[in-house]
């Protein structure tokens, strides 16, 4: 059993207009076996939370803590975080020239496990995982994400999730840009990884449709860099019907305060 604990996290970025605070005090605890959905409108800071957990250099943590089983995640370099068991399925996976998928997957697996995987079983595992995600075998010889469609890139992210077996997976809008079939395939992959029982999942999404396939126990509503409401799966259903309008700033300020208070209670 592992715990990923985020406490009062404040994060800023440098923009041309100066420093801008994106996360304004986020607290969240995820344990092995749990699935948490983070939902919110565009620009609410969901992806910033994901990238900050992974250690993207663009995001400056100005306050708060992130710990993994008590270890200070913020003190770790990006690769150390991955080796400690954190995995970020990226919203926009990067194309890496000159590196084949095969070479990349083996190098990463070796780094994460601290030893090279046994060649025979590894090749079989990769093949099987690719098949389950309906990834063509010839992708293995192509360069990482190079020329892949949006949907293919997302499937390859989940392929890595299944092969690397992290303690915590952060899925940053993995559902965006996927058609229904691809969404199902990707969700099945996440569910398979989850079913092994050694992973906690943070599912970041704008839309509720992925929640038809991946069932969260906890739903957190993110608005303007803060969690404004928390609840069970029923909260997602409510969002589906009502959208994020009721969290709009201005007229809804009182509602937000009330919701936040309710969430903390």
């Amino acid at each position, binding site marked *: 059993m592992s715990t990923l604990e985020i406490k009062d996290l404040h994060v800023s*970025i440098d*923009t041309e207009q100066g420093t801008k605070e994106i996360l304004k005090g986020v607290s969240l605890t995820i344990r092995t076996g749990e699935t948490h959905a983070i939902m919110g409108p*565009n*620009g609410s800071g969901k*992806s910033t939370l994901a*990238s900050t957990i*992974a*250690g*993207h*250099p*663009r995001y400056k943590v100005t306050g708060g803590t992130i710990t993994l089983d008590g270890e200070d995640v913020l003190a770790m*370099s*990006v*690769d150390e*975080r*991955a*080796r400690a068991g954190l995995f*970020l399925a*990226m*919203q*926009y*996976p*990067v*194309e*890496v*020239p*000159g*590196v*084949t998928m095969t*070479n*990349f997957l083996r*190098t*990463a697996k070796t*780094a*994460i496990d601290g030893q090279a995987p046994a060649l025979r079983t590894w090749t079989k595992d990769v093949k099987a995982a690719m098949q389950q995600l309906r990834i063509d075998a010839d992708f293995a010889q192509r*360069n*990482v*994400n*190079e*020329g892949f469609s949006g949907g293919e890139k997302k499937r390859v992210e989940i392929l*890595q999730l299944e092969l*690397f077996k992290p303690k915590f997976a952060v899925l940053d809008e993995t559902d965006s840009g996927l058609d229904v079939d691809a969404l199902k395939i990707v969700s099945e992959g996440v569910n398979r990884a989850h079913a092994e029982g050694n992973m906690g999942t943070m599912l970041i999404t704008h839309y509720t449709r992925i929640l038809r396939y991946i069932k969260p126990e906890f739903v957190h509503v993110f608005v303007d860099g803060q969690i404004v409401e928390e609840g069970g799966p029923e909260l997602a259903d409510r969002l589906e019907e009502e959208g994020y309008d009721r969290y709009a700033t201005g007229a809804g300020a009182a509602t937000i305060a009330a919701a936040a208070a309710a969430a903390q209670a």
Partner: protein
Amino acid sequence: MTAEITTEKARIGAPSIAGFTEEGEGLVSAKVDHSHNHGVTVMASRAERLTSFNVADFALPTGREEEWRFSPVRGLANLLSDTATELDPEPATAFTVEAPEGYVRGTLAPGAAPRGTVLTPADRAAVVASANVDEALHLVIPAEAEPAEPLRILVHGAGAGRRSNAHFVIEAGANSRSVVIVEHTGAADHNGNLEVIVGEGAKLTVISVQLWEDDAKHLGQHDAEVGKDAVYKHIAVSLGGSIVRLNSNVRFSGEGAEAELLGLYFADAGQHLEHRSFVDHNVANCKSNVLYKGALQGKNAHTVWVGDVLIQKQALGTDSYEKNQNLVLTDGCRADSVPNLEIETGLIEGAGHASSTGRFDDEHLFYLMARGIPEEVARRLVVRGFLNEIIQQIKVAALEERLTEAVERELAATEN
């Protein structure tokens, strides 16, 4: 605010080396540094380029000429002067030839055929080399021969700044199969001409390896004529030297011939590595492929690739392609890349060109590190993968291994 965040996301996630997949003239013209064209008369066709055995026909370049505009001519004065090879206290360069018995056919004086039948000097460096070499090495691979080991010409420079001229003539007999490695080590101010005749049906690979020390300078013209149904491959590998500028040119003497001009270079801080290729499709139904790949790192690392392809009116059925790709590893580098394609007939199989210069940037690094891969391993992974496309074309295991190691050493130098 929403708009702003959207932009931010696009910046983080967007494939920042989109250029890697782009092809065509739009991109190329965007990358050409037009400001360097001032005061330069651009010739109408590559075919009009002056060639001559007479030193007086080539003025000393000022750096404003089209073919010298990327080169640091101020640092080349010694190589461009009409000067003989330094012989005291020992020759500026030592030559060792490893070849089966009988392959070395002595030497050729200027004007003694086949010397001068394929290579006519096309610039000042080549003409002074030609004029100052009285005895050119003449290497002949007999018809039908298939030597088991690659032939080697080792050129070792005795010291920086010492002037050296060389001219080698290689003839691959009909239907022979062979590999010739010309390897440059040590340091010198070296002008090296290489003249290659590929006989009918022959298959010849020439690999010119520049593993010079840091203070070496090297200018070279490598010309080949490829016979009917013959296959010629020229691979330039430039890792060492302070200034290296090689011209790899090819034309055909019979139909059904193929030429492949490949190159790999890795420029460090202050290094100037320049490669120019020219495929002259003067005969119908020939095929050519040009691919040069380079990596750059460090302040004022400068690479140049200029690839000319001319498809003459009579060259019906030509199939040609040329591409240059550069990978920029750090700030402060400059990669010039200029593909030029001239087509005088429309009745061809294909003619394409592409050029891209991409950056190994923080986003690539982040992606690989987010998968647990340490920074230096990530960097090595990318560069090795990128350059491997050329290295694996060498097909001489021992040399491939040495070059892989040499590339690793270059990379190790980035990390300090």
